């Protein structure tokens, strides 16, 4: 039996054998194209000042995202409102390019009255969705820039006994718009027992208030055992308790990233000290999934809400669906020759006309019988 299988396999890989079509090579092609195209990822960090957000981001991506940072004093902070600062950096590792945008929210939670501090953030997220929707409905969709926020790290202070009222309110306001990953900041303040207690408390409060945080997808059954085990460990460690550092300290004879205290050294990349490695693993291995959930869940939610509300979206007034399958098909066409491009355009025009007809029909129906139950 196994010999037959082996023969079959050999048949499939050997291009000369009869019966081999060759589409098994498609993943490689997609991989090559993606590597050439590069990845885009937008990460938003939200939390009160002084929780180590910038240090953590620098540690995660081993880069200095804020080289000329000036920390304002309390007196200067009094008149400030929440601002949105987006910094983009291009990171390349082994030929794979990542265009990472980190959206920072300085001023969040600093004011005495933080009632309105999340309005700015929610408007920003909605704006990115709106822009994408507008681009998606446009005529020329070749170079849509995806600035939608794919993931939001929410920093919880380790000093309290759980989440603060502001934390709860904010998460409830954005959990339907973006993937929320709660992170316990500056975890070296906590002993092991305190850390466990705080994590449990936060998870209880998240349940209690019905907050939907990002859930890691279960490992597929055909993945190897290590990956399954890793996913299981990641799932049980949420929220991650992390420590960040930009400094290298000498410890036990080697240089490690860490924080030097008179009573010991906290190593950032030591899994027994904190969950930094877990957070990084989660982010890197699930970057694709985060983008998918943003596209399939949050963006679609936004889109359906928006379309129900109505209003013109694009210059020609038609709202075209852009299914994922269509996007995949379009990708190779962006570098195709001219006649295929023209065929594409005419295909688009025909589609547009069809949809315009359908929409006009629906509108007529809507005006005719306003109380029809099925509408």
């Amino acid at each position, binding site marked *: 039996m196994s010999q037959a299988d082996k023969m079959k396999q050999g048949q499939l890989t050997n291009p000369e054998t009869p019966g081999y079509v060759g589409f098994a090579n498609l993943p490689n092609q997609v991989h090559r194209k993606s590597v050439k195209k590069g990845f885009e990822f937008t990460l938003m960090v939200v939390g009160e000042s002084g929780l180590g957000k910038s240090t953590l981001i620098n540690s995660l991506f081993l880069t200095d995202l804020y080289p000329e940072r000036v*920390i304002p004093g309390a007196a200067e*902070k009094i008149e400030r409102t929440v601002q949105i600062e987006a910094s983009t950096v291009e990171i390349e590792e082994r030929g794979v390019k990542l265009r990472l945008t980190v959206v920072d929210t300085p001023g969040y939670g600093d004011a005495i*009255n933080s009632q309105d501090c999340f309005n700015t953030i929610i408007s920003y997220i909605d704006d990115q969705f709106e822009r994408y929707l507008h681009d998606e409905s446009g005529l020329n969709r070749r170079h849509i820039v995806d600035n939608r926020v794919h993931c939001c790290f929410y920093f919880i*202070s380790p*000093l309290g006994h759980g989440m603060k009222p502001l934390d709860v309110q904010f998460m409830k306001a954005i959990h339907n718009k973006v993937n929320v990953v709660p992170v316990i900041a500056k975890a070296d303040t906590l002993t092991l027992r305190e850390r466990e207690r705080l994590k449990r408390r936060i998870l209880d409060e998240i349940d209690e208030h019905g907050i939907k945080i990002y859930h890691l997808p279960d490992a597929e059954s055909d993945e190897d055992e290590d990956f399954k085990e890793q996913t299981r460990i990641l799932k049980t460690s949420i929220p991650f308790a992390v420590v960040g550092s930009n400094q290298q300290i000498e410890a036990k004879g080697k240089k490690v990233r860490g924080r030097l205290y008179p009573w*010991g050294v906290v190593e950032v990349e030591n899994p027994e000290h904190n969950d930094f490695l877990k957070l990084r693993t989660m982010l890197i291995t699930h970057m694709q999934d985060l983008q998918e959930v943003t596209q399939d869940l949050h963006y679609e939610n936004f889109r359906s809400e928006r379309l129900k509300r109505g209003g013109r979206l694009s210059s020609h007034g038609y709202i075209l669906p852009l299914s994922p399958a269509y996007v995949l098909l379009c990708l190779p066409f962006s570098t195709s020759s001219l006649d295929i491009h023209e065929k594409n355009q005419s295909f688009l025009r025909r589609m547009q006309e069809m949809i315009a007809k359908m929409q006009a029909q629906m509108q007529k129906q809507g005006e005719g019988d306003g109380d029809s139950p099925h509408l």
Partner: protein
Amino acid sequence: MSEIVPPEVRPKPAVPAKPSHVAPPSSGPFVPSPQGTGGEGQGSGRGSALLGYIGIDTIIEQMRKKTMKTGFDFNIMVVGQSGLGKSTLVNTLFKSQVSRRSTSWSRDEKIPKTVEIKSASHVIEEGGVKMKLTVVDTPGFGDQINNENCWEPISKYINEQYEKFLKEEVNIARKKRIPDTRVHCCLYFISPTGHSLRQLDIEFMKHLSRVVNIIPVIAKSDTLTLDEKTEFKQRVRKELEACGIECYPQKEFDEDMEDKSDNDKIREAMPFAVVGSDKEYQVNGKRVLGRKTAWGVVEVENPNHCEFSLLRDFMIRSHLQDLKEVTHNIHYETYRAKRLNDNGGLHPISSGQDTQESNL
């Protein structure tokens, strides 16, 4: 001229010696001078020369005995966001379970919607001296989304205590010992962000530094490395100065050069970066109070690890009486003067007799 040598044996003064790191070792109160002048006191202000030993110095011993018998009150208020370790620190300071956490409050209680004032009193005894310690806690401070004016309940409470004391003082038939519920010291807990003070911190201290003695402390300071600690402290001091906030010990109340130099040293070291703990661990063969983490044990009483010992020595061992005096002589008097000016005089409360115009 025969020399009159003062007797060798004298009762030792019962004044607790100032710890050496707070004051420069001054010459002892009694300098057996061979000339027989028997100069008393610390040298400032030459009194008239005494020709023999009278025993004026025993008044200190008498005062001490009296204080021991009556005991004294100390009221401390702790203010800060929840989770900053206020209760633990107070328990560590007084080495006993005096904070409300030990009595009725459980860790899982919800954050109250407005600032509450909860006070708990305990009598603790050490070396024959009884102290009635009252800890006033302020749960809910700074925990809401909208924290505007959250210092008002605290300000109201402090003024109410002054009012209570004033009413008693103004009475015709006064009690021998007026119960003192005035807040002698307010420990304000600063969150160890490492950046700067928060707006709320500045607003609170602005409103209350003229009404009560505020001692700012940096809470949970085991989150800061040594460099971060020094930078943070410098920045906090600069900000306090820029906003015109005077914390205890206030510069204007320094009485003499010695006080000034002692207090200057303290002011340079403030705000104290503290860590509190009520658990003991074994370190190098000794049992110490501390926090045990995967990378080491933070020792609470180790001056290299945190400044808890400095705070304790300053607050309890050297400046406890001074805190009470400044509260009574300065803050309370300010309140009293304002009250009298506003009302045009207070009417004393008597038990049934005709009220007289107060001769205050």
